[in-house]
């Protein structure tokens, strides 16, 4: 093993992870603040002799990824909020067809064009479906440049294993900032698994279709298909929750924050602990599946919760679902690109 370490932006770390994870196909479209990622992929995919396409739109990009995934390739697209809204159509089709794909959302402020500052206002869209129909995608929320790499790398085998789109939900701050990035120079792509469902030509077997239109009744009906999807989602919820519990064992007050905001939350915990105040941090790493049980176990110990987000309050609804006592859940959020300040968080504890 030979570790390499260098200063990288989050966007480039994400791109490098995709290359290292064996991403064979990338399609993207320019949008700030993820442009470095598309540019990086154009260089690296070209160097590796893999496919990079600058699509004519986000709609085209996600559907190119759909095609590459149908053909059995590890495929990725990346964008930022307005572009991800356009991609929702394709994500719904990927979910319906049970196709793996990796989608990175470097979130910016909204609604509409909003601004290009960091934001966490796409939480609902990412975790509650986003497009039409009953579906979920796995959502990973990195909080550092290193995790931009690690989680993107992990997203590919997760997508393959469950035949599901996996989203890396990050923001303009994590995408643009530079931090040390370290990984094994000889890191191998995660083991490719058989994709017996892929369409590569009906050679030596019956022809088949990859589709999401289910007009039949009984066997092969949409209801049956959705039951199957839901069973898969239950399985993922049971086995893929990731959460970081920081100094929560004896915590009377718990900050719940993910991604960039969790960094501020952690710093608040350290400072308040220094003053003898029993504060902890829960950082959901998977936003879907959400760590309901972990938060509930703290609620059972009578902790109260302060949810901090760069939004008007989206994840707070999941925390309320977990705690089931609204009086013990409070919220602090910023909505215009401002990052919650430590003083503002600590004054609420």
């Amino acid at each position, binding site marked *: 093993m030979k570790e390499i370490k260098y200063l990288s932006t989050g966007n480039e770390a994400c791109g490098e992870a995709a290359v290292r994870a064996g991403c064979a196909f990338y399609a993207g479209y320019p949008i700030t603040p993820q442009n470095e990622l598309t540019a990086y992929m154009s260089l690296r995919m070209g160097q590796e002799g893999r496919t990079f396409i600058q699509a004519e739109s986000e709609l085209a990009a996600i559907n190119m990824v*759909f095609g590459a995934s149908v053909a059995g390739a590890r495929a990725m697209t990346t964008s930022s909020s307005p572009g991800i809204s356009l991609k929702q159509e394709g994500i719904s089709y990927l979910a319906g067809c049970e196709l793996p794909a990796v989608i990175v959302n470097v979130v910016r402020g909204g609604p509409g064009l909003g601004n290009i500052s960091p934001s966490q206002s796409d939480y609902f869209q990412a975790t509650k479906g986003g497009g039409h129909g009953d579906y979920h995608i796995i959502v990973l929320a990195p909080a550092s440049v290193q995790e931009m790499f690690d989680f993107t790398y992990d997203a590919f085998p997760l997508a393959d294993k469950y035949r599901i789109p996996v989203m890396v939900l990050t923001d303009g701050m994590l995408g643009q900032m530079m931090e040390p990035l370290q990984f094994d120079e000889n890191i191998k792509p995660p083991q490719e698994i058989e994709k017996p469902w892929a369409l590569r*030509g*009906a050679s030596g077997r019956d022809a088949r279709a990859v589709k999401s239109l289910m007009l039949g009744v009984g066997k092969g009906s949409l209801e049956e298909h959705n039951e199957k999807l839901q069973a898969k989602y239950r399985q993922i919820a049971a086995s893929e929750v990731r959460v970081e519990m920081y100094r929560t064992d004896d915590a009377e007050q718990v900050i719940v924050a993910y991604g960039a905001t969790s960094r501020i939350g952690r710093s608040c915990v350290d400072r308040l602990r220094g003053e003898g105040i029993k504060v902890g941090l829960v950082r959901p790493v998977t936003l879907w599946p959400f760590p309901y049980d972990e938060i509930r176990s703290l609620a059972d110990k009578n902790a109260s919760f302060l949810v901090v987000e760069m939004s008007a309050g989206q994840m707070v609804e999941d925390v309320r679902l977990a705690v089931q006592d609204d009086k013990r859940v409070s919220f602090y959020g910023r909505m215009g690109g401002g990052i919650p300040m430590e003083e503002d968080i600590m004054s609420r504890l």
Partner: protein
Amino acid sequence: MKEFKKPISMKDVPTHYCPGCGHGLIHRIICEVIDELGIREKTVAVAPVGCAVLAYDYWDFDTTEAAHGRTPAVATGIKRVLPDRLVFTYQGDGDLAAIGTSEIIHTGNRAENISVIFVNNGVYGMTGGQMAPTTLLGQKTATTPFTRRPAEDGFPFKIMEMMAVLPGVTYLERTSVCSPKEVFNTARAIKRSFETQLENKGFSMVEVLSPCPTYWGMTPLKAMKRIEEVVVKEYPLGVIKG
């Protein structure tokens, strides 16, 4: 001695299409060409949204289904991953010339080495006979109750002529299925399109003028006559490029 029978690339099931619908004909023509070229096992097709969405129920080769209009984008993804397969899209005029205009133009402009079979019947069939971009002036549809008038609805969309200016586009031809002669001609054109792809010569597209007796409000025979006498005046047959 030669027998006339169903192509082996066609599943032995009845189609859901209306009597006299051109889709059944064009499906069969494609399957005959695939049989003739012996490429059934290396074909991956992309079905559109529209009446032909269920094409995979009739074609006995691998087929996926794209979101409305994104058909060429999906085909692009497949072809880039599997460059040695025959990849084609099958699209109606709503899918290709309305919601998917951007995808078709850019896929052609990228010189994607795929084939496009564009079925122009001048209406939206699946949704109930609404105006398509290709609807003729003076034609009555569910959404042009006073007929298509340029001031309100614009003009019939000649997508092939527009595509012709793109350097990435290798071969364009417009055919019809209104008579046995034209059916043979369509088969020849589709074969040429597939061969263009198999020889790595780039993007090609065959527009097939096709009848929709149901939403044209006429018998299948009259619909064929209408193509022959009326539709071809707006959409002249022949090689447009290549």
